[in-house]
């Protein structure tokens, strides 16, 4: 998958968890998942599980801890899918 394709899927995963729906419209790779999209920290685990299911990858706790922005999630997915 291209970066753009992964980005679109990541956004679709984040959409139901984002409280700041208006921020989704202006989303970029630098957008913070917690601070800008206002995804509740209690729902981050759901996001990680969705990433695993949709892309068929495994995300370790250490990997998950590095994801701050949409771009971090996209790069993590691409790194895992390309290494498989």
């Amino acid at each position: 998958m291209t970066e753009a394709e992964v980005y679109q899927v990541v956004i679709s995963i984040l959409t139901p968890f984002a409280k700041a729906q208006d921020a989704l419209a202006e989303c970029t790779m630098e957008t913070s998942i917690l601070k800008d999209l206002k995804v509740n920290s209690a729902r981050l685990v759901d996001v990680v599980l969705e990433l695993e299911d949709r892309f068929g990858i495994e995300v370790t706790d250490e990997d998950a801890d590095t994801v701050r922005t949409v771009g971090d999630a996209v790069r993590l997915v691409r790194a895992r899918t390309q290494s498989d």
Partner: protein
Amino acid sequence: MNDAALLDARSAVGNDVIDLQQEDHHAAFQRPRILKRICSPDEAQRVQESARPEQTFWGLFAAKEAAFKAVIQWLGQVPLCYPEFRVSLDQRTVEWRDVRLKLEVRSTERFVHALAWSGTGFPSWALRATRGGQSSSQRVRQLLLDHAARRLGLSADQLAVRRIPRAEAWDGAGPPELMHRGRPLQIPVSLSHDGNLIACALGITCGVGLLRLPGDQLK
């Protein structure tokens, strides 16, 4: 000085509130993969054997979040790996590596609230239900300012909360700091919000009469 000794010597406080009326929280404890991400094997067993599994699960989650917030006050950013935060069976302590924090977890049908702290004394805390208006982030800051003003005998107008941007932090900013007339008070504080609930904690571990305010007289 190791991490445990550092936290023993300094005071730190974290708190976390979970609004159990949030519908999307209801099924979490029933999903084995969620349990595995949050709980150690024995904690997961506690949830599965509990008469109130939802409260038990979110109590563990809130305890770990509260402990994480306390730990990063003095140790800086650490990995947020939930199973590494181990909650004792009696829910009186939570351990992370060689650090042991005191813990109190309250749960009702409406909410779960956890306090984790180091140092002597017992943290002061407040929890409120809110409706509309300001953002949860603004409302919980105001709750802390009002609560701190009452506890410290100060005017809320002279207090402020700041979070310094920190790129490596999980949400892009360092722990909240309580400011008085523009200068940081050396009192650990913690903020939390979820759904329609907001909560704060104030780590007052010395008597208010001994509190030294920067550039001010003893109060």
